[in-house]
């Protein structure tokens, strides 16, 4: 929704600038006395998570990183197969025969 009226637009700009300044002029809060001790009490009650330590390579990240490469390879393979003169036969074979058997046969021909 755009303000069509330039006067109104100017007023909105002015209001926004004031709100921006209001945000920046908020006083910075300080930690009260005993706050740090409270943090340390809370910390001593909690336990560090068992997540992998810094520097190690988590499995989920490995999966996501290889997912893109796997997709790319799959796209290239499909493109290559469709570019073949006998691709119509291949598609028919994939649809009506055993797809796994067909793929194995095609890949062994590459």
């Amino acid at each position: 929704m755009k303000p069509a009226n330039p006067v109104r637009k100017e007023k909105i700009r002015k209001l926004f600038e004031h709100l921006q300044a209001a945000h920046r002029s908020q006083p910075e809060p300080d930690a009260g006395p005993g706050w740090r001790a409270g943090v340390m009490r809370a910390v001593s009650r909690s336990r560090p998570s068992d997540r992998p330590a810094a520097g190690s390579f988590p499995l989920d990240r490995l999966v996501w990183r290889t997912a893109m490469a796997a997709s790319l390879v799959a796209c290239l393979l499909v493109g290559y197969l469709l570019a073949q003169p006998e691709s119509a036969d291949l598609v028919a074979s994939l649809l009506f025969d055993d797809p796994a058997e067909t793929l194995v046969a095609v890949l062994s021909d590459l």
Partner: protein
Amino acid sequence: MAQAEQALTDAEIVRLVVEGKTDAFETLVTRHQAQVFKIVGRHVPRAQVDEVAQDVFVRAFTSLATYSEQAPFHHWLASLAVRTCYGFWREAYRSRETPMSALSEEGQTWVEHVLTVQADRSFHQQAAAQEAQTVLHWALDQLSPENRTVLTLVYLEGLSIREAAALLNWSQVNVKVRAHRARLRLRTLLLGLVKERGSP
């Protein structure tokens, strides 16, 4: 705080804490509490700052093993602080029982005053006024937690899309789209205020 720990870098203290020396974490709290209070103070109401800042450090402690030394510790902590504030608003919106309030009479008077003042001479006095904070918080309360957080970072704090995305651990495209939507929503809200004041 132990004298020996004061001389250590943040990364070295992190290693000590991860190895089980929990007390060393206090050095990190002392070093970075001002930074965390500054961030949290800009995102959540004053009454909740202490509690949310404490949550930031507890979350930092429990996930300290995930800290990668490739980035400075204060960057990692700043990101955690912003995401904790975002979590605070998500929780607050989820448990919200009362409908969103209308802008108070004082807030509306402030809007009228801002719009009628010709010179920018009193700009800072206007911005510092309590009413300005009332209008600001009223406007932010109308936004979703996502839009609120992005609007605060990008338009109120002046961070770039890339910086905001890094803090939130979101994609830049997501932040860009959110920022655009949030700005549109805010503009609609302000337009409503301007119309209420009977402008042409």
